[in-house]
């Protein structure tokens, strides 16, 4: 599925997520869905960026913030794929444009 670059994403409320991180990998439980997911290093970083953001972010903004934190940013395609997967899993959702 191709997603618009202008699409903005926000994570589900942080209180709905229970996280544990080991060596760059995160296991997250989504209290809304009751599902538990394993996130690799890039997805872990993307989730942290979204959870820390004060507003919904585009894929490009997520990339910028990953780069600013010194994280391995991943390609635009990879970040977009992570966001899309987050949407499928209910870890993030598209928000209306600001």
């Amino acid at each position: 599925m191709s997603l618009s670059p202008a699409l903005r994403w926000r994570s589900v409320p942080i209180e709905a997520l229970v996280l544990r991180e080991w060596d760059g990998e995160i296991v997250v439980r989504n209290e809304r869905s009751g599902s538990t997911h394993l996130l690799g290093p890039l997805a872990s970083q993307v989730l942290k960026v979204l959870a820390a953001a004060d507003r919904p972010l585009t894929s490009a903004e997520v990339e910028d913030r990953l780069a600013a934190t010194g994280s391995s940013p991943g390609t635009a395609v990879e970040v977009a794929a992570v966001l899309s997967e987050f949407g499928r899993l209910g870890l993030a959702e598209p928000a209306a444009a600001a």
Partner: protein
Amino acid sequence: MIVDDLSRRELAERLSDGGLRLRTGPVVNRIQSRLPSVLDGIALHYADHVVEDRGAFADFHVRIAPPTNARRWIAPQVRFLFDGASPFLPLPANQAFAMLEWGLNWCVSSHCHQFLIVHSASVAKAGQALLLPGHPGSGKSTLCAGLVSRGWRLLSDELTLLELATGRVVPLPRPISLKNASIDAVRRFAPEARLSAVVHDTAKGSVAHMKPPTESVHQAADTAQARWIVFPQYQSAAPARLHPLSRARTFIHLADHAFNYDVHARKGFELLAQVVSDADCFAFEYGVLREATALFDHLASRA
């Protein structure tokens, strides 16, 4: 009192009358059966287990009995009854003891939600537990039998019970279920092990049970700290080899092997996270039981 204290006649009377109240780890099972094969299986495999008083509370009320139809005489069958209801299809009568074992597993995995229950063998040395989660055919029971034959304490062959408050492993020492080629493998490796006669053509192939070590039964009240989590995979002739597994992946695999992870919701997540954090985690291949047990002895000696 333990089962071995009862004469065969007394054991038969308990089984056929009010029921034998057999303690297995944290639960008491009230077992009723008039079948000689069930009596023989209990006399062999549960010889060291505590028998509770006749009026004692029992968690599970089970019975192994023939169906009340013509099948009693033609290709006889047996049923497992739980609170008088039959949750499973009948099986051939020669599988009666195996059916009791599978039924008791079901009782625990379906009802004991005071624990997080993982489909895993577990053994311990010096109070430190080695968890061996695995799907059928992974070789976990073979490895479990091999380790207890070399001095490891049996915590459980099939159902590892994690205490919700502490994450510690609560022992459930019951017979070890061996299948197909693993039966002869264990016989060769541990000729002193006490195995039942082999029952062929079950849904799981040929099945035999191995009596749990007496000491393991005596220590059934002593919990153990999960120290190693190892996912075994038997491969013919493969050298014994441990591969480090990330804790996050171990968490997911362990949750996949848990019977009631979802039941416990956030508590289950936090408990598994604690257990995984405190353990060393590996995938493990082996093809020779002697090599495998030596490797874990070495691992324990360094702990």
